[in-house]
C-alpha cells in the first residue's frame, strides 16, 4: 500500500492533515454498533460482578490455597500493557526519536485505559470493595500494597496529563473545526484547549510542561512495575522469592505494551484510514523495537528459570518441574515460544515487519503475555511449602469459575470502551506535532 511513504509526505499540507485526522471523529459508521456490543458485554460482566458481591468470593474458583487467581493475573497484565505510554512517548520522546510522533498518542490512550482498568481490577478482586479506602486509611508504609495503590493512581494521573497536554493545540483546532460535535463535547474542547493560539510563548511554555512530565513518568512507570513485582517477590514462596522480579516485570511490560500498541496502530490505520501517518515505516520500527525488548525479556527469563532450574532446590524443584514438564508445561512453553522466541526469529526478517504480519504476531505476543501472567500467579499458590491434603477436592486445583471469566471479560471490554471513546472524541494522531515535524506552517485562530 505504502511502498514509498517519503514521496507522499511531500504532498501533505496542514489542511490535509487536519481533514484526514478529524474525518474519523465526525464520521462514525459502525461505531455505534461496536459501542453497543461493548456495553452489552460490560452489562453481562456487571451482572456477574453483582452475583459475586451478593454471594461472596465463594462464587469464584479461589479457595484457601489459591487466593490470588485470574483477577490478579489480569491485574498484572493490565499494569504491564499500560507501560507502553512511558516507553513510547516518554523514553523515546526524551531521546528525540522522531518517528514516534504519530503513534505516541495511541500509546498514551492505551496507557490511560489500561492503568485505569488495572486499578479497577484490584477492586473487583476484593470481597469487600466497600473497604477499599482502608488501604489508604490504615495502610502500612512497609506494605507494597500501599505503594501499589499510590503508584497506580500517580501513573494514571501523569498518563492522563501526558495525553491531554500534547493535545492542547489539536483541541484548539477541534474547537474550531468540528462543527457537528454535541455541545457537551464542544465545551470540553473549549476548556481543554486552554485558550491556546500557538504563540511562541505558549508553545515554549507548553513544551516545558510536557518535558517535565516526560521525565517524571519514567521513575513512576518503573515503580509501578517494580512494586507490582514486589507484591509477589516480598514473600517466601517458591517461584516468587527471587531478586530479578522487578526488572523481569519491567521487561515483560515492554513486550506486552509494544504488542498492544502495534495491534492498536493497525486497527486505527485501517479503520481511520491513516495510512499516510501510521506508515509501514512505523511498523518496521516497532518491529525492531519489539525484537529488542523481547531479547531483553528473554534474557531475564533465562535468569528467572535457568538459574533456579540448575540448582533445583526442593521447593523450587517441585515448582519448576510442574512448569517445565508437568501440569503447566503447555501453558508455560507456549507462552515462551509464541510470546518471545518465535516473534524474535520472525521479526528479524523485513517481510514480517509489514503491517499485517506484525499485527498477527503481536496478537500472539499479547495473548502469550496474558498466559504468562497466569503462569506466574497461579502455579506458585498451588505449591505451598506444606503439601495440600485432606481438604475438599476443589481446594487442590484452581480453575476460574464462569463468574470470574465473565468479570475478566468485563475488564477487557471496559478497556476497549475507554480506548474507543477516547479515540472518538480526541484526534488519535497529533495534527500540530506532525505539521511541526514536517516544517509546515500553520495558524490556530482564536
Amino acid at each position: 500500500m505504502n511502498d514509498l511513504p517519503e514521496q507522499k509526505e511531500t504532498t501533505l499540507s496542514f489542511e490535509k492533515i487536519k481533514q484526514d485526522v478529524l474525518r474519523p471523529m465526525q464520521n462514525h459508521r459502525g461505531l455505534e454498533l461496536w459501542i453497543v456490543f461493548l456495553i452489552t458485554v460490560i452489562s453481562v460482566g456487571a451482572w456477574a460482578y453483582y452475583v459475586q458481591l451478593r454471594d461472596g468470593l465463594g462464587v469464584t474458583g479461589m479457595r484457601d490455597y489459591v487466593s490470588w487467581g485470574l483477577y490478579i493475573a489480569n491485574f498484572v497484565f493490565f499494569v504491564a500493557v499500560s507501560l507502553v505510554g512511558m516507553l513510547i512517548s516518554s523514553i523515546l520522546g526524551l531521546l528525540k526519536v522522531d518517528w514516534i510522533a504519530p503513534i505516541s498518542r495511541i500509546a498514551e490512550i492505551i496507557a490511560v485505559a489500561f492503568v485505569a482498568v488495572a486499578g479497577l481490577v484490584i477492586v473487583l478482586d476484593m470481597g469487600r470493595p466497600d473497604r477499599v479506602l482502608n488501604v489508604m486509611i490504615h495502610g502500612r508504609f512497609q506494605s507494597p500494597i500501599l505503594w501499589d495503590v499510590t503508584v497506580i493512581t500517580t501513573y494514571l494521573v501523569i498518563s492522563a496529563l501526558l495525553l491531554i497536554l500534547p493535545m492542547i493545540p489539536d483541541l484548539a483546532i477541534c474547537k474550531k473545526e468540528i462543527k457537528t460535535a454535541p455541545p457537551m463535547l464542544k465545551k470540553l474542547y473549549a476548556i481543554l484547549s486552554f485558550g491556546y493560539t500557538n504563540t511562541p510563548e505558549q508553545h515554549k511554555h507548553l513544551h516545558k510542561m510536557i518535558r517535565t512530565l516526560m521525565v517524571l513518568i519514567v521513575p513512576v512507570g518503573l515503580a509501578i512495575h517494580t512494586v507490582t513485582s514486589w507484591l509477589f517477590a516480598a514473600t517466601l514462596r517458591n517461584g516468587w522469592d527471587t531478586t530479578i522480579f522487578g526488572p523481569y516485570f519491567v521487561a515483560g511490560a515492554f513486550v506486552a505494551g509494544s504488542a498492544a500498541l502495534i495491534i492498536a496502530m493497525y486497527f486505527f490505520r485501517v479503520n481511520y484510514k491513516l495510512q499516510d501517518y501510521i506508515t509501514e515505516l512505523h511498523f518496521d520500527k516497532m518491529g525492531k523495537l519489539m525484537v529488542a525488548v523481547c531479547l531483553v525479556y528473554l534474557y531475564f527469563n533465562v535468569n528467572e528459570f535457568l538459574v533456579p532450574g540448575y540448582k533445583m532446590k526442593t521447593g523450587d524443584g517441585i515448582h519448576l518441574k510442574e512448569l517445565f514438564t508437568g501440569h503447566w508445561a503447555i501453558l508455560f512453553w507456549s507462552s515462551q515460544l509464541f510470546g518471545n522466541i518465535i516473534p524474535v526469529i520472525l521479526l528479524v526478517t523485513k517481510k514480517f515487519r509489514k503491517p499485517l504480519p506484525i499485527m498477527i504476531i503481536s496478537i500472539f505476543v499479547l495473548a502469550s503475555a496474558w498466559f504468562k501472567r497466569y503462569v506466574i500467579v497461579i502455579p506458585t499458590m498451588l505449591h505451598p511449602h506444606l503439601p495440600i491434603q485432606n481438604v475438599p477436592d476443589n481446594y487442590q486445583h484452581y480453575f476460574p469459575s464462569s463468574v470470574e471469566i465473565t468479570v475478566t471479560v468485563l475488564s477487557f471490554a471496559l478497556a476497549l470502551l475507554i480506548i474507543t471513546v477516547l479515540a472518538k472524541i480526541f484526534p488519535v494522531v497529533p495534527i500540530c506535532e506532525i505539521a511541526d515535524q514536517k516544517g509546515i506552517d500553520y495558524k490556530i485562530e482564536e
Partner: protein
Amino acid sequence: MKNAIKIIASLFLIVVFTTTVVKAEDWAVPNSSKKKQNPYEASTKNISSGKKIYNINCKSCHGDATMGNMLPLQPVAPSDLGSQAFLVQSDGEIYYKINKGRAAMPTFEKTLSDEAKWMVVTYLRSFDKNKKASKQVAEIKNPEVTDVKLVLDINQEDKKVAANLTGLTKKGDRVALQGIELSIKVKRSFGYLDVSGDDAFTDDKGNVEINFPADLPGDREGHVNLLVKVTDDAYYGELAVDRIATLGVPTDPVNPLDERAMWGTRANAPIWIIVSYAGGVIGIWGIIFLVLFQLIQLPKLAKNKE
C-alpha cells in the same frame, strides 16, 4: 551363617521394639488418667458423631484412620490413629493425649467438650481389631455432695501452691473429695500454661500440692495470674478459682512490636521508609500540581501577545 542372620535379625527386632517402647513411654500419662474409662457406648450413632469430630479436628494432620496418609511432619510424623499399635493404649491414655497435646499436637482441653473427646475415642476404638472387653477398674467413690469448695493456699516464699477440694454431704459434714484431677495454670499472652505436673489428683484429704516453677516470668512485680480448676467438669461442673500471686520472676516485658521495624504496625514503621514514601509522594505530586498550575497560566500567555 543362617544362624548369624537370624541372630542379627532378632537383635535388630529387639532394638526396634525397645526403641518404639521407649518412644511410646516418652509421652507419660499419669496412672490415674490411664484408668479412666470411656463412659459412652460404642453405638453406631456415637461412632459416626466421633467420626465427624475427628474429620474436623484431627484429620488434617493424622489423615484418615487406618489409611496411613498422615502429614509427613519432621522430626516425628503424627501417628495413624487407626493402627493397632496406637490402639493398644487404654481409653484414658488416648483421652489424656487429646486433652493435653504435646509439641506439634495441640491441646484440645478447651476447644472440644468432654463428650466430643470421648466420641473421638469411641470412633477410634471402632478400628480396634481385638476390642478388649472394658475392664472395670475399682474407682474411688466420693459421696454425693453439694456446695463444692476449692480453697487455695499459696506459699509465696517457697513457691508452693496447695489446693483443697471439699464438699458438703447430705448430713451436713464437710468431707474431702478424693481422686479428682485439678488443673493448675498460669495465664500467658495466648491461653494458659499448665503447671499441674504429672499427677495433680486430690489425695484422701482432698489436697493437691505443687511446686511452682522457679523460672517463670511474671510482670514487673513478679505477679502471675494463677487459675486452679477441676479438670473434668463432668463431676462437679465448672469449678475454678483464680488468683494473682507473686510467684513469678520479676520481668520487664519487651514487646518486639514496640521497636521500629518492617514487621511493625504503621505507627512503628522505620523512619527511612516513611521518609522515602512521603518524600516520593510529596515530590512527585508537587511537580504534578506545579504543572497543573502552569497549565492554568496558559490562557494568559495568549493575551500577553496581544
